[in-house]
C-alpha cells in the first residue's frame, strides 16, 4: 500500500495533474459557493472537458472539485444565509448569526480550518480503511435506511429545543411536502396536479427559498444599524484559543462524516446534520447553538468534507456511488475507459492512489487559500443591506434556474421564501422543514421496502442488529431534549419559589 501511495504522489506531482488539482480546487470552491450549483452539477459540467484528458489528471480534476465544493458551500451560508451546497445548511445556522454579530471573519476562518482538517484526516482514513469498510457500505438495506432517516429526523427535537411544538410542526409539514411526487413503490402520482411535480418538490429550490429568499425579505424590513454593533474588525480571523476549543468537535465531525459518507445514498448533507446534532448535545453551552456557536460550524464543516472521502470508499472499492456526485464520477471513469468496480484497485491502482495524493495535497492548499480569501470575503458583511438583498435575490434566481433550466424551480423557491419569512417572523424554525424534506422520501420508501422484505412483519426492524441499534439511538435522540426541557423547567420553577 505504501509504495502505491508514493507512486500516487509521483503521479500527482506531474505537470498536468498539478494543473488539474489547482483548477479543480478553484472551480469547485466557486461552484460550491454559488447557491443552486452543487458538486453533482459541477462535475457533470466539467466532464466534457475531460474527454481530451488523460485518466489521472481527469480524475484529479473532478475529485478535487468535489472536495472543494464542500469548502465553498460554507462561504455563502455564513455570509448571506444561503447555503451554497445542501451540506452547508447546518453551517448557516451558526455562521449567519456570527456575521450579523460582526464576526464573519471568525466564522469563515473556522469553517475553512475545519474543512481542511476534515478533508485531510478523512483522506487518511480512506487510505487506511477503504477496503475493509467496503462491506459496511453494503450492509445497509431497507430497514437500516429507515432507521437512519428516523435518526436524522429525531435531530429536530434538538434543533427546535426551545419551541418543540413549532419545530415538529415545521418538520411534519416538511414530511408532507416530501410526499408530493411519484410514489416510488406504487408508481402513482401523489398530490401532483401538474407533471412538473412528478419528481417531487425540488429540494435545492426549497432550501434556497426557506433560507436565502426568506432572508431577503427579512432584509427588506429595513432595520439598519447592523454595522454599528460590531466590536472589533469584521475580518478578524479566529484566535488560537477559539480554534483549540473546536478541536475535539472537528475530530468527532470527521469520524461521523466519514462513516455517514460511506453509506450509499447518505451523503454530506446528512453527515453535517448528524455531526451538528452530536456537537450540540455534547456541548457545555448548547444554547449558543443556533446563535453563533463556532463549534456548530466546526462540526458541520468537518463532517461535510469528510463525507466526500467517505463517499469514495464504496465508489473506489465496489463501483457503488456513495452519493449523487460520486455517481457522476462513475460516468467520468467510464469515459476514461476505466471500470469502477471491485477490480479497480487491482487493475488500475494508480487512479485511487493519485486521488488520495491529490486530496492530501489540496487540503493545506485550500486552507491557506481559503483563509486569505476569508479576510476579503468577510468584508461582504459590511455591504449595505439594500445591495445585499438585491444580490442575494439575484443570485438565488440564477442558481435555482440553473438547476433544471426552468423557471419552475425559481417559482418554488419564491413560494418557500414567502412561507419561510412568515415562519421566521413568528417563531417557527425553518431548519426542521429542510431536514424533513431531505429525509422524508428516504424514510417512507425504506419503511415500505423493509415491510415488503419482511412480508408485512415489522419485526424485521428489530431482528437486524444495525437497524435495531440506530432505532434505539434515534429514540434517545428524540426524547432527550424533551426530557431536558422538562427537567430544566422543573428546576427553574423550583429556584423561582
Amino acid at each position, binding site marked *: 500500500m505504501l509504495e502505491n501511495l508514493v507512486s500516487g504522489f509521483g503521479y500527482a506531482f506531474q505537470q498536468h495533474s498539478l494543473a488539474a488539482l489547482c483548477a479543480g480546487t478553484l472551480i469547485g470552491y466557486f461552484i460550491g459557493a454559488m447557491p443552486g*450549483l452543487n458538486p453533482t452539477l459541477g462535475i457533470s*459540467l466539467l466532464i466534457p472537458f475531460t474527454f481530451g484528458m488523460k485518466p489521472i489528471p481527469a480524475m484529479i480534476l473532478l475529485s478535487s472539485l468535489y472536495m472543494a465544493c464542500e469548502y465553498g458551500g460554507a462561504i455563502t451560508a455564513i455570509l448571506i444565509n444561503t447555503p451554497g451546497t445542501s451540506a452547508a445548511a447546518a453551517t448557516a445556522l451558526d455562521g449567519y448569526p456570527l456575521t450579523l454579530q460582526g464576526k464573519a471573519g471568525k466564522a469563515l476562518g473556522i469553517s475553512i480550518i475545519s474543512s481542511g482538517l476534515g478533508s485531510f484526516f478523512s483522506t487518511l482514513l480512506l487510505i487506511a480503511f477503504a477496503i475493509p469498510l467496503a462491506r459496511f457500505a453494503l450492509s445497509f438495506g431497507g430497514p437500516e435506511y429507515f432507521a437512519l432517516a428516523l435518526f436524522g429526523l429525531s435531530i429536530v427535537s434538538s434543533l427546535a429545543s426551545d419551541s418543540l*411544538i*413549532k419545530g*415538529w*410542526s415545521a418538520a*411534519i*409539514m416538511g*414530511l*408532507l411536502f416530501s*410526499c408530493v411526487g411519484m*410514489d416510488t*413503490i*406504487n408508481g*402513482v402520482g*401523489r*398530490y401532483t396536479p401538474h407533471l412538473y411535480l412528478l419528481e417531487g418538490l425540488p429540494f435545492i429550490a426549497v432550501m434556497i427559498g426557506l433560507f436565502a429568499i426568506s432572508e*431577503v*425579505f427579512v432584509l*427588506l*424590513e*429595513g432595520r439598519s444599524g447592523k454595522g454599528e454593533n460590531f466590536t472589533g474588525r469584521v475580518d478578524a480571523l479566529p484566535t488560537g484559543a477559539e480554534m483549540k476549543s473546536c478541536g475535539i468537535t472537528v475530530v468527532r465531525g470527521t469520524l461521523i462524516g466519514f462513516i455517514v459518507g460511506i453509506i450509499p445514498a447518505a451523503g454530506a448533507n446528512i453527515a453535517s446534520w448528524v455531526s451538528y446534532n452530536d456537537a450540540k448535545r455534547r456541548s457545555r453551552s448548547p444554547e449558543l447553538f443556533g446563535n453563533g456557536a463556532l463549534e456548530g460550524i466546526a462540526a458541520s464543516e468537518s463532517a461535510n468534507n469528510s463525507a466526500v472521502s467517505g463517499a469514495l470508499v464504496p465508489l473506489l472499492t465496489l463501483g457503488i456511488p456513495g452519493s449523487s456526485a460520486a455517481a457522476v464520477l462513475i460516468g467520468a471513469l467510464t469515459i476514461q475507459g476505466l471500470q469502477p468496480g471491485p477490480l479497480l484497485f487491482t487493475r488500475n491502482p494508480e487512479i485511487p492512489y493519485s486521488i488520495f495524493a491529490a486530496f492530501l495535497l489540496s487540503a493545506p492548499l485550500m486552507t491557506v487559500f481559503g483563509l486569505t480569501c476569508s479576510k476579503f470575503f468577510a468584508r461582504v458583511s459590511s455591504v*449595505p*443591506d*439594500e*445591495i445585499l*438583498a*438585491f*444580490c442575494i*435575490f*439575484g443570485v438565488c*434566481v*440564477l442558481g435555482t*434556474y*440553473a438547476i433544471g*433550466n426552468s*423557471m419552475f424551480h*425559481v*417559482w418554488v423557491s*419564491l413560494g418557500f421564501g*414567502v412561507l419561510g*419569512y*412568515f*415562519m421566521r*417572523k*413568528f*417563531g*417557527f424554525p425553518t431548519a426542521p422543514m429542510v431536514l424533513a424534506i431531505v429525509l422524508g422520501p428516504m424514510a*417512507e420508501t425504506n*419503511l*415500505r421496502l423493509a*415491510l*415488503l422484505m*419482511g*412480508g*408485512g*412483519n415489522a419485526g424485521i426492524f428489530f431482528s437486524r442488529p444495525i437497524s435495531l441499534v440506530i432505532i434505539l439511538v434515534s429514540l434517545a435522540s428524540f426524547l432527550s431534549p424533551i426530557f431536558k426541557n422538562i427537567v430544566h423547567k422543573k428546576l427553574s420553577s423550583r429556584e423561582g419559589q
Partner: protein
Amino acid sequence: MLFRFGEIGISVLSVLAGIAFGLGSRNFPASAGGGDLGPAFFPGILSLILIILGSLQCLFSLRYNRSDKRIPLKTLFRVIVGMGLCTFYIYMIPVCGYFYVTIAFCPLFLLYQGYRKIPWIVGISVGFVILAYGVFYRMLAVALPL
C-alpha cells in the same frame, strides 16, 4: 400586530394544510399487497399529527401571554409589497428576457428599499448583469431565458 396573531395564523394554516393533505390522500389507490403499507399511509398519519400539533400550538398561543411582542404593521406591509415586486420580476423574466428584466429590476428594488446613492445603483445593476452573463451564461452554459 401582536406576535400571537401570527402564531395562531400559522398554526391554523398548518391545521388546514393537514386537512388538505389528509383529504387528498383518500384518493390514493390501495396498497398492492404483500405487506406494503400503500401510498396513503404515510401522508395520512402525518396529516393527523400535523392537525394535532397545529391545534395544540393554537391553544398555547391563545392561553399564554408570553408572546405579546408587537410587530409594526408598516414593516409587514413594506415586506409584502417587496414580495410583490419580486414576484413580478420573476414573472417577467421569461416574457422579456433575463438580462433586460434584471437590469430594470435592480434599480427599482434598490430605490424601493430607500437606497439613494445613484452611482452605486447604476454600478450594481450593470455589474451584476455582466457577472450573470459572463459566469452563468457563458462559462457555465446555463440557458437563461432571453
